[in-house]
């Protein structure tokens, strides 16, 4: 294979680089060892920062967020819900920080309007009666899956190629130049060479490993963050704790649920990242003073991602390391056509991609300007199913006799499965149930797939899409993935739900005996 630019990593940054380059007419291949947003890009709050979170300690980052947030609201509007946000201080919080907050916001150009506590509580009843100050800021919610899938879909429509489940295992280097990358197909283990002019390493937390393969060392820290998903939505807006950044400071609206987090702890090993019982309990303990209903709220899931932080260790938890991004041209490492873009945050992914693409284009001699800030991302029908409410609307408006509901929690029907299966298939992939789950709401409701996975697999077998034992293997894979997010939150009703799932899948179907 051959391409102008090989992009490594299919997260929000890598897909944004693909979109940027494709819009400038540059040919590229994106290789992703797992699936789109499988790393931190799919394991975060989904917060489009107004910047207010950063005003006290990093005015540059705050300003950058404000500008990029405004751009994304324009060009990626379907992935964004402009919910607005509150910053809430409760009794006992640092009053000096509260007092300084509006001035800091003003300095970064961020609108922070004071709201009296009674009004704020009328609009957001989950806020504690111990609240002492509330400011309204232009925070918003972003669906990172839709953002990445739509960016990638646009890039593909312009000729870019996506290779999922493909890992870079080596580079062929001649002098200062990488001539080819050796990539391995994760499904069957075969390797092939991709001849390249340029390589952009956008592998997020794995950027250090990839750079090492090219002989270019990077200093990085890994900070693990855990988040919780509530059963039902606790607030309409983003609710931030008005205090210096700490644990469990942000409650995000995420469609039909709320997402609460996060923690921050240094990790050394990127394998086996999972939420722990202690982290779950810490999040609830820290967040409950601002949001008392959390004390009895049902939690349906927890997940953990790893923030790639660039720089050297200073604090113990990584929170004091800059959340800014870094673009390495690796010239000093003796490389002329390899670069790394990492760090940063969801809100600034477009800007990161622009800077990365600028470097690649300079090296290629391409002079076309970046278009990602001005050209809205076009609609791609296969990317709309991550939106809660989209599948139910489609199903209700058609109510076709041949389109049964598969997932009753999130109301996803067979036609959605078929559309996703066919779209993946058309791209040359062998779609799995987990792939379909990532691109839709299947398995994301209270039952966490216990019932809908059975129906989904029956549907796909009936279509002839699955043969042999494959569908059952996929149920097992799907549950393993879902269970990874459940085992730390199993008490109360969710434990009863898990017991029912085990009664069905082990007690009746004996899936553990296979």
């Amino acid at each position, binding site marked *: 294979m051959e391409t102008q630019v090989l992009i490594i990593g299919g997260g929000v940054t890598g897909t944004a680089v693909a979109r940027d380059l494709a819009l400038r007419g540059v040919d590229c291949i994106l290789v992703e060892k797992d699936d789109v947003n499988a790393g931190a890009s799919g394991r975060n709050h989904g917060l489009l920062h107004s910047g207010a979170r950063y005003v006290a300690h990093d005015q540059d980052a705050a300003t950058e967020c404000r500008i990029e947030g405004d751009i994304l609201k324009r060009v990626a509007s379907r992935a964004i819900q402009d919910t607005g946000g509150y910053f809430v201080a409760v009794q006992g919080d640092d009053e000096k920080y509260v007092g300084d907050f509006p001035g800091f916001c003003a300095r970064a150009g961020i609108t922070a309007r004071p709201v009296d506590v009674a009004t704020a509580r009328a609009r957001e009843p989950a806020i504690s009666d111990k609240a002492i100050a509330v400011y309204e800021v232009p925070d918003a919610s972003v669906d990172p899956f839709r953002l990445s899938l739509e960016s990638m879909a646009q890039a593909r429509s312009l000729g870019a190629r996506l290779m999922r489940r493909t890992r870079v295992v080596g580079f062929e280097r001649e002098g200062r130049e990488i001539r080819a990358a050796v990539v391995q197909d994760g499904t069957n283990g075969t390797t092939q060479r991709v001849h390249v002019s340029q390589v952009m390493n956008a592998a997020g937390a794995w950027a250090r490993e990839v750079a090492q393969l090219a002989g270019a060392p990077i200093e990085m820290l890994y900070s693990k963050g855990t988040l919780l998903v509530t059963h039902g939505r606790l607030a309409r807006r983003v609710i931030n704790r008005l205090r210096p950044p700490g644990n469990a400071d942000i409650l995000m609206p995420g469609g039909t649920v709320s997402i609460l987090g996060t923690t921050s702890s240094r990790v050394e090993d990127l394998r086996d990242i*999972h939420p*722990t*019982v*202690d982290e779950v*309990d810490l999040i*609830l303990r820290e967040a409950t003073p601002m949001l008392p209903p959390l004390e009895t709220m049902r939690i349906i899931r927890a997940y953990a991602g790893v923030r790639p932080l660039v720089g050297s260790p200073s604090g113990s938890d990584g929170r004091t390391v800059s959340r800014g991004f870094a673009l390495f041209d690796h010239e000093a490492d003796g490389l002329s056509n390899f670069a790394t873009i990492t760090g940063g945050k969801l809100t600034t992914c477009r800007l990161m991609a622009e800077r990365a693409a600028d470097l690649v284009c300079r090296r290629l001699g391409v002079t076309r300007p970046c278009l990602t800030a001005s050209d809205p991302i076009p609609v791609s029908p296969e990317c709309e199913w991550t939106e809660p409410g989209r599948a139910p609307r489609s199903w209700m408006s058609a*109510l*076709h*006799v*041949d*389109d*049964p*509901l*598969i997932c009753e929690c999130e109301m996803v029907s067979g036609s959605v499965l078929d559309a996703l299966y066919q779209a993946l298939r058309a791209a040359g992939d062998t779609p799995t149930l987990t792939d379909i789950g990532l691109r839709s709401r299947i398995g994301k409701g209270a039952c966490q797939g216990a*019932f809908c996975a*059975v*129906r989904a*697999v*029956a*549907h796909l*077998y*009936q279509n*002839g899409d*699955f*043969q*042999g*034992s494959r*569908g*059952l293997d996929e*149920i*097992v894979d799907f*549950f*393993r993935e*879902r*269970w*990874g997010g459940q*085992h730390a939150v*199993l*008490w*109360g009703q969710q*434990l*009863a739900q*898990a*017991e*029912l799932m*085990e*009664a*069905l899948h*082990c*007690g*009746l*179907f*004996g*899936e*553990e*005996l*296979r």
Partner: protein
Amino acid sequence: MNGNRTRLFDVAVIGAGMAGMATSLFAARRDLSCVQVGNGGGILFASGLLDLLGVHPVADRRRWDCPFEALSSLRRDLPDHPLARVGDDALRAAFEAFVSELGAVGLPYAPLDGANHPVLTSIGTVKTTYAVPRSMMAGVEMMRSRPSCLLVDFRGLREFSARQVVAKIGADWPGLHSVRVEFPGFEAVSELYAAHLARAIESAATRDSVAERVRPLLGDATAVGFPAVLGLSRSGEVHERLQQSLGLPVFEIPTMPTSVPGLRLKDAMEAALAAWRVVRHVQAKVTKVSFDDDVATLSLDDVPGGQTIRARSVVLATGRFTGGGLSAGRGHVSERVLDLPVHQPGTRGEWHRRDFLDPAGHPVNRAGLATDGDFRPLSADGRPAWHRLFATGSILAHQDWMREKCGSGLAIGTAWTAVEAISRGLQAPRKAG
């Protein structure tokens, strides 16, 4: 039921799942006056198959053709397991009594032969079970001999694809084929529910129409499998007539709960308890139980202001987390009705394993009530909490019914043994008053 306020029952059973039903039934059969509290919702999740013991040790995934051989192994390895405390004779007698009661109210089971049976499930796996409803038994014979056989599914019944089952096991069963047909009268409906189909097929016209649609598709089939929707209260008749009109053995394949066989079992148990004059408080929850020397008083919340019932013995058959017998906070598992001590792992971090299907099973599933040999739950001091308080079924500690495939055996076996103990105890001389 006004008289129930002052009446002194021999046995009060709290819970109406499989264990509560079995306990009430066995008590009534011994001429003990019995009152039961609970709504029977849990039994809806039953598959209709009555497991005795199918797998042991779970970590080895070892399946057994003979449940009694499995039991002797279990008794050696896990002496605290509730089933290790029920004798083979008691289990045989209990299962015979249980299925004969079900047969008497129109839910016939295949004769018990002391062996486990392989049953094909709706997703294409094979379940090991003990007592098989007669409507499913031809499937067991087919599983063993694997002749030419047709599996039928209905478009819109989303949890069962006959094609899936054939894809899954067809390589080992070349004569297995699938067809999909429209269920008569439901051609314009996108989602079919098993219970609706089961009710519809009780009409002769619908049944004949199903047979007409399947008959041309039979080919060289020697038996026909359907999802378990062949009738509710008249399932025996539906099954029989369908076999007659197709001229072949017909069998049902158990489906995902809540399933029709679960509904049948609930209805049949209720009919059996009514026949034995068990007094039932279906809408009530027990809010409090107080004990004096010889009588327990249960407070119920089913009428404004509540009411009480009095009994000389009490059986806790309230199930686990789904049934509501146990409840879990963020750090601790507790027993809901009497706050009895619960045997459990140390912290929530130890409740579950990281892999859902870890063959060793999740430690929290072996949490529950510790008891003496008569299934009397123990208080913190290690002595029975009350001399005539018993616990039966899945609330008991030291078992993992989902992995061991022993849910019904646990319910039926412990109910039998507890009722024997109650009966013995009540024959002892009563105290005055």
